């Protein structure tokens, strides 16, 4: 049902119904959360340093937020193309030895990783 609600309430849309001008917000960064989302283990010192740099860069970016862009459609692809497909044909897969050759850890044909926290 999340997707259902997301689908209805999601702010950004393909057509010109963009939310237009965004009044610039004071940049506040929960760097710990960001680092967790990005799966990068940072020391406290690093967190402080990076959050300062990020704030600095984002303040520079606020001028962009100030731009009036009502009625402006976002560009996601430089060239206006649609529908690039491939035919439903099987192409030979890689040789498993080549696949596992570069693996940090493997076990009888599988990639091996440490135990996983129950987050799935």
């Amino acid at each position: 049902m999340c997707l259902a609600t997301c689908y209805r309430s999601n702010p950004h849309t393909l057509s010109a119904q963009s939310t237009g001008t965004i009044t610039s917000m004071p940049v506040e960064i929960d760097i710990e959360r960001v680092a967790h989302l990005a799966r990068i283990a940072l020391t406290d010192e690093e967190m402080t340093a990076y959050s300062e740099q990020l704030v600095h860069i984002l303040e520079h970016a606020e001028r962009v937020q100030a731009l009036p862009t009502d009625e402006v459609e976002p560009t996601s692809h430089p060239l206006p193309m649609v529908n690039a497909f491939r035919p439903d044909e099987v192409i030979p897969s890689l040789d498993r030895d080549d696949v596992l050759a570069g693996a940090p850890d493997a076990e009888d044909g599988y990639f091996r990783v440490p135990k996983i926290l129950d987050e799935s």
Partner: protein
Amino acid sequence: MTDLADLTIAQASAGLREQEFSAVDLLDAVERRAAITEAHLHAYLTLDREGAREAAEAADIALVDGDLRPLLGIPIALKDNMVTKGVETTASSQILAGWKPPYDGTAVRRLREAGAVIVGKTNLDEFAMGSSTENSAYGPTRNPWNTETVPGGSSGGSAAVVAVGSALGAFGSDTGGSIRQPASLTGIVGAKPTYGLVSRYGLIAFASSLDQIGPLARTVPDAAMLLEAVAGWDRMDATSYHGDVPAISRSLNVGVRGVRIGVVTELVGEGIDPQVLAATRATIDRLSEAGADVVEISLPAIEYALSAYYLIAPAECSANLARFEGVRYGLRVDGATTEEMMARTRAEGFGPEVTRRILLGTYALSAGYYDAFYGQAQRVRTLLRNDFATAYGQVDVLVSPTSPTTAFEIGAKTGDPLTMYLTDICTIATNLAGDPAISVPVGLDDGGLPIGFQIMAPALGEEVMFRVAAEVERLVDFTARPRLATSKVVAP
């Protein structure tokens, strides 16, 4: 007689066909040059001696059979973010140290099929994030014109090897200026093609909607020849252009009479070094003397290009680089759980600039900020495209300096990310628009450092872009070479 390492691709190609020398001779010359220059530059990360030799020998056999493929037997170098089967590919990151890919990227495959001899893999800013090649996990590359300065980036290694002749040509990738700016700082030609003209399959992604592979060479015709070898639709890249490839080298000798050239107001004012500005103006005057109609044109949205770029590129890279986590390939730092292993691997495997951009992009995409940052940046991109569209309604090409300054000293900008980002001010707009642009050397500053001139064209406007570039090359006749570009220099 001239050292074969100093030949242009066109000259070398002719010499090979006339059998004045062999592809192996040519490779020997280039490797001899590398043996001397590398000690000063550190432009190569890997030299594939065996692979290169085999390719050169194969080329010599084909040449005897009268094979006329233009790149047959030509020694070229590849930026190390281009995936090469069996040859270590690291993108200058610790996280990929020792990775030997099981496949070739499309551009690489096409170059092999064209008979080119791949000498080795060149240094770059880690994952192409940077403008100086100082962000390499394997140490910086130095500028052959003055080894105290940077060669630019992120394709600094490819630019340096071409400048000194340890390869006759090279390929790099350009996301915000990463081909043109180093070409400008090392006195060579570098082109960023229209987005989609060259397949990105096998190019380790930085920012997917901006990345584009392109050539670096000593001359405009050489650059055109290299681009023609790799351009064209690829079924493995959904964003590759499914249409006719522009006639890139058809009009190289036509001149600029009647060509309408627009000088971008915003890029010939403050923030640009006076000597760079002077050389730019001089070149523009030459062009109008040669019969081009020159006007000034304003692209107001360009003011916002840099900010938009630094929201879009990190956002895309934060997802593109998520695949590096120690599970399937590359570095792994152990941890009690997989989550811990991943976080430690990424902390140790990524350098500071890459980490900074991943964090920035993750934040820009995270709940509540999407529209304020990424979404808004994509709309600015549209404004910019509209400005370009209007401009190209009045002119055939736009021109500007390639870089606001000549090469700066190593370490000069590493302290503050923003000042480093500002070095891309002239090049970023065309990446956001998806348009092609090329940098051609037009002189030296007082310090004897090269100055580059940028020519921009509308999407798929490569023909007129190369046409103007070739004329600039003739008019300026830039023949200077870095002191290092000779096999007589002794190792330090």
